[in-house]
């Protein structure tokens, strides 16, 4: 069997690039009118998309560590998505430049009472230089691991052999604890530290659960985007779709489990030092958003994804993937916005830069990933288990 190198996608990449420039440009324009609000919109979009890239990296690493074979056919896509962490490092610069407008701890002298005490207590950890250094470290790790995995896999396209598979498996397993820790602390830094009242040990898992789920949604959309020869879709069978759907189902449930655990424990203990975070989301205009998440981020997709027929139908599964991406954005927005804006009682008040930033950052990532897909085989042809993956038929 022969697989052609993927040389298409040129027009997709260019179109995505145009959208990205437009979206980011408009966000910048919004920044001239309302710098604070545009920056908030941008930070939410950044955390949303960067989480997906890291989520995809963790999916690949975990599957490598577990020696999974069925997913080999879609692995090239999964390897290419995390390469965008290099792009996200660049996209982090605006957040870094505007951090004084985003994070209350940057300048504790503005704060009063309990918040000031907390900011001063956390000073050794939450200070601008260390924050920048940490983020650089997270990205350094993600960029290194994703490039090594992608590099070995593409080298295997021409060289073949077992040694490169072993390398990928070993790095996948060995670096997983560190990549996971980096994601946890990224969640603490980028999201949790926005609200000084929030200190939740499960918070890293919350960010991971949503991002991991959204990474599967992006993977499903990416493989279903094109039926071009040499890309995974042409080689996949319904069992692959079924498995991808099962992973979405599993992580819809996992997300709900983590979200419910955090909510129940904080609500029931009702401690004045930690419950304000939920009060800001339940005694305000944000309450419907929380209920929306319970219904549309868990109950509805859970029951829809239970259907076997749906999981084996690529079109229907793509629809659910879009669904998941939307509700995951609502989730990230719900976690970050009330904290960013300090005025939850004034209502949700979405802003047009929310949309331009979301589309701009997302389109930039799409353009980057499509561009990185080009010039290589669309499936890891040198992988010794590709043939087995194509025959995937669980009994």
């Amino acid at each position, binding site marked *: 069997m*022969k697989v052609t190198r993927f040389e298409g996608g040129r027009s997709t990449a260019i179109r995505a690039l145009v959208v990205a420039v437009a979206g980011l440009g408009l966000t910048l324009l919004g920044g001239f009118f309302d710098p604070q609000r545009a920056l908030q919109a941008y930070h939410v979009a950044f955390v949303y998309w960067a989480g997906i890239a890291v989520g995809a990296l963790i999916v690949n690493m975990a599957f490598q560590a577990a020696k999974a074979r069925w997913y080999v056919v879609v692995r090239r896509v999964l390897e290419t998505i995390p390469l965008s962490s290099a792009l996200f490092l660049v996209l982090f610069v605006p957040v870094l430049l505007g951090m004084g407008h985003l994070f209350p701890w940057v300048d504790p002298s503005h704060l009063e009472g309990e918040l000031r005490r907390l900011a001063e207590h956390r000073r050794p950890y939450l200070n601008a230089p260390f924050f920048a250094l940490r983020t650089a470290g997270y990205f350094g790790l993600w960029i290194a691991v994703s490039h090594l995995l992608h590099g070995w896999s593409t080298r295997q396209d021409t060289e073949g052999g077992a040694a490169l598979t072993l390398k990928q498996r070993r790095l996948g397993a060995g670096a997983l604890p560190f990549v996971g*820790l980096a994601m946890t602390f990224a969640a603490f830094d980028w999201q949790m530290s926005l609200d000084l009242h929030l*200190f939740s040990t499960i918070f*890293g898992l919350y960010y991971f659960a949503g991002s991991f789920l959204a990474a599967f949604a992006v993977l499903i959309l990416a493989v279903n985007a094109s039926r071009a020869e040499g890309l995974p879709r042409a080689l996949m069978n319904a069992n692959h779709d079924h498995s991808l759907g099962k992973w979405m189902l599993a992580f819809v449930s996992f997300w709900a*489990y983590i979200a419910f655990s955090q909510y129940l424990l904080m609500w029931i*203990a009702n401690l004045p030092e930690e419950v304000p975070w939920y009060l800001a989301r339940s005694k305000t205009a944000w309450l419907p958003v929380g209920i929306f998440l319970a219904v549309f981020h868990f109950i509805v997709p859970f029951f829809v994804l239970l259907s076997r027929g749906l999981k084996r139908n690529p079109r229907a599964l793509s629809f659910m993937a879009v669904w998941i991406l939307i509700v995951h954005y609502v989730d990230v927005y719900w976690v970050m916005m009330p904290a960013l804006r300090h005025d939850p009682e004034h209502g949700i008040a979405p802003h047009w830069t929310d949309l331009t930033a979301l589309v701009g950052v997302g389109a930039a990532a799409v353009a980057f990933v499509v561009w990185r897909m080009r010039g290589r085989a669309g499936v890891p042809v040198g992988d010794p288990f590709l043939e087995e993956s194509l025959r995937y038929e669980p009994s």
Partner: protein
Amino acid sequence: MSVEMRELTALERGTLEGAPVLVGRPDDRKLNDDLFLPVWEKTRRGWLALFGITLGLTGLLFSAIAYTFAKGIGAWGNNIPVAWAYDIINFVWWIGIGHAGTLISAILLLFQQKWRTSINRFAEAMTLFAVIQALLFPMIHLGRPWFFFWLFPYPSTLATWPNFKSPLLWDVFAVSTYFTVSLLFWYVGLLPDLAALRDASKSKAARIAYGIFALGWRGSARHWRHYRIAYLLLAGLATPLVLSVHTIVSFDFAVSQLPGWHTTIFPPYFVAGAIFSGFAMVLTLMIPARKVFGFEGVITQRHLDNMAKVMLATGLMVSYGYLTETFIAWYSGDKFESFVFFNTRARGPYAPIYWTMITCNVLVPQILWWRKARENTILLWIVSILVNVGMWTERFVIIVTSLHRDFLPSSWAMYRPTWVDWSILSGTIGFFGLLFLLFLRFVPSVSASEVKELRRELEHEAHAGAHAAKRAAPAARVR
């Protein structure tokens, strides 16, 4: 330009695949004979000796319980503020151990893992016996255990209902559901083997006994049709159930406001710890059993290797829990929370227990990164025992250190277990062993019907692989 898809050489396949899940391709008859041998053979001396020891410990257990009933909870070392101690430590420890069985059976079935097949029966039995030990503890801690049924919602003359807002009641539902579902899952899985035992038995008594338990299984296509889907659905239900049980156990602590107990990571972290200790206990029991019964062909190096890896992975998750807890204890800026982590636990009177926990749960499992260590059965066995010890100390650290020094220094107190506490703990280990020995003697500890199916699948796969290679060959030539 195009690229050729590659074939794997036999040598490369060997490097990538590791040890086989089934050594050789024994036929059905041989599998039946080998795997049922422990049931048919004459009672071994070693078995009798172990049976005697565990019977003695079981006697100790029930004597200590009788003493507790006669004397009251005062027979234990519990005090105020340490009102929960060995009873709850042992409860959580045993229930945690009881998690691996259903996890191995259910989750690995959903993940289509072939190495599940020859260890699931064993692990599920372990689950049941561990849950029985776990259930004993809350029961004897009730104070008036003869009123245990007050926990259930039944229309009583008291005209009250239980308080469903308490995690302790959630526990009653979770643990009893878990025991029931695990028992059903285990029993349903046993049916084909019970029928095979019935049909292969030489004595009339055995035929009748196994015949009753086989319920009339005839391996009919109609049976299999319902059976397969029922088993899969049970696995699908058991998977979230396993997670829920230890989650709810963690709620017992985390819903409170006590520093060291109230933290949001508890649910997933307890679940990871449960799987960690459960796999450790499976290894502790399986390594000697496989040797004694000569099951190395069906419980291969591959099984041990995979279990060691799961232990490593869950051990890392537990370490992640310790790390985030400690970090957030500082980050929160809460004086009491930091005091528990940086003073009471790490440097307080129970510090040696805390550092034992760190050594056994965080440091020791790291050795499993090396394949040589995973391949060394004795070393693996020692690691698994240390993990069991480590997980027991973890529960001690969580429960006793958090309680013995809370907000007011004037109410601080030390906890010391009495001989009754020790007798009950060692007694449950004996009782657990006793039940396990009976299981090994009367029930096939490896599922023969599933290994038969596994062999067919492996043959089918090898056939499909060879077929695909043949198809690919001409294409390679035209190039």
